[in-house]
């Protein structure tokens, strides 16, 4: 029997709250219009476009080298993997033969970017749930990777180290040494992440059974990356459509089945272990060879459509180029992982409390420029 206001003549309207665009939990300019009843959330309606720069319109007037540098600004936490996506699309379209050295280096730096993105996610995840010290431990490990990138590519976040046809310049002499140092350091620190946050009973109570996503819903909503794998949906592009040197390494896909925030959290922690093992398999035998294949200054793709899938830290990034043979693409579409992962937020947050919404949003690991493009 609904005891509360149902049968009394007290009329109660919905209570609207604006979560964003300036809000600590949204990690960027995303505005969520929450309809709440006390603490319980009835509806979440995202309002996007605060950081929309119409990258796809810009791509229609830029040459292919210039498009690569634009992708840095989309998902800035896996900027290297975004660059690699566009370069692979162009190289496959031109049927360029890429030397093995480039493939191995691209995969190593890609996995390092994934670890860097996951350590930042872990730090910010702890902060969202209330443990403020995790932020600094996460950033301490991320700083070591940023230094490796700064030494090799010259930039910490927006690398633009890839160009269609290979890499801009060769890796720095002590790239291998620094990466090995990082792996050794991180192997001792990752278990600490578990004792500090994963094992904590308050953390488990806040995460288990929160934001449940079944496997069918994950597929139907197009969830990819750790969000999909948390619900048992095997969607790792590195496994199903391997690219660069990923077919030469053996690693197992982190899959969990119960689909709540804690499962998505565990998938990302496991992925960090997998990425480290991939780097170890490749770091010692980087094949010799030059790092750039000669392409003519103005790249013209043949007429037709080209699609390339890549696994970024957030999920499956797809680059679809519809070219009519001119020097810039007729239409270029980025299938961004964050966009589909955000679309399921309303589905998993309804019925939960505000604390649950913040916890499940943290495990969706949203990067707003990746959604708005």
């Amino acid at each position, binding site marked *: 029997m609904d005891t509360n206001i149902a049968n009394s003549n007290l009329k109660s309207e919905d209570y609207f709250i604006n979560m964003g665009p300036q809000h600590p939990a949204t990690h960027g300019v995303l505005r969520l219009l929450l309809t709440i009843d006390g603490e319980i959330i009835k509806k979440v309606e995202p309002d996007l476009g605060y950081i929309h720069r119409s990258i796809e319109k810009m791509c229609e007037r*830029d040459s292919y*080298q*210039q498009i690569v*540098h*634009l992708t*840095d600004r989309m998902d800035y936490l896996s900027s290297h993997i975004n660059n690699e996506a566009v370069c692979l699309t162009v190289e496959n379209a031109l049927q360029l033969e890429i030397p093995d050295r480039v493939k191995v280096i691209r995969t190593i730096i890609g996995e390092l970017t994934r670890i860097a993105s996951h350590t930042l996610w872990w730090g910010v995840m702890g902060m969202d749930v209330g443990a403020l*010290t995790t932020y*600094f431990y996460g*950033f*301490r490990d991320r*700083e070591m990777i940023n*230094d490796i990138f*700064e*030494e*090799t*590519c*010259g*930039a910490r976040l*927006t690398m*633009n180290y890839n*160009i269609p046809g290979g890499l*801009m310049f060769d890796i*720095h002499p002590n790239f291998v040494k620094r990466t090995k140092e990082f792996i050794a350091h991180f192997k001792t620190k990752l278990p*600490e992440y578990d*004792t*500090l*946050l994963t*094992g*904590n*009973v*308050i953390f488990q109570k806040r995460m288990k059974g929160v934001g449940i996503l079944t496997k069918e819903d994950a597929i139907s909503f197009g969830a990819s990356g750790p969000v999909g794998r948390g619900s048992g949906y095997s969607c790792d592009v590195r496994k199903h459509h391997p690219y660069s040197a990923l077919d030469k390494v053996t690693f197992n896909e982190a899959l969990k089945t119960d689909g709540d925030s804690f499962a998505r959290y565990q998938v990302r922690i496991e992925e960090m272990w997998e990425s480290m093992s991939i780097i170890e398999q490749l770091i010692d035998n980087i094949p010799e060879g030059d790092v750039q294949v000669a392409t003519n*200054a103005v790249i013209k793709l043949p007429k037709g459509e080209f699609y390339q899938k890549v696994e970024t830290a957030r999920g499956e990034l797809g680059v679809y180029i519809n070219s009519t043979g001119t020097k810039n693409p007729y239409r270029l579409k980025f299938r961004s992982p964050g966009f589909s992962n955000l679309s399921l937020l309303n589905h998993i947050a309804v019925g939960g409390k505000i604390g649950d919404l913040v916890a499940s949003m943290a495990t969706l690991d949203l990067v707003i420029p990746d959604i708005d493009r």
Partner: protein
Amino acid sequence: MSYFGDIYKGIKTLLTGMSVTGKYFITSRKGAITQQYPDNRETLKMFERFRGEVVMPHDENNEHRCTGCQKCELACPNGSIEIIWDRQIDPESGKKKKMIDKHVYHLGMCTMCGLCIEACPTDAIVWAQNFENSVYDRSYLTKVLNQPNSKLKAGVEE
């Protein structure tokens, strides 16, 4: 009895969590990971590939390598390089030749993508490692890379 069981388990996980932060508290004498930026300015050295700002190196008798071919201007995605060139009589060969007058570089619009340096045939522009580029007026951000009355270094054309 699971009532007391999960209380005990809960407290045990809480204590292990505290042990991690406690370990860091005790060993905090080892120094912080944060960089004391304004204090360590003298000792701070950036990596030599760090992309601070595009500059045109001049050798001792004020000569640079830029021929004014505008390849970098075409390669730049957001128009932050403007080459102002004019036809002058080349003193040795007496023919009219395309000479660089001003290589205007808008640091304010540059996204540090490195495509111009990649496209330059004569390696005339390189990265400088300074990162303190903030200025009080936007007009200071538009720089002219080639120093006044500097000449093209001989032998670069071939």
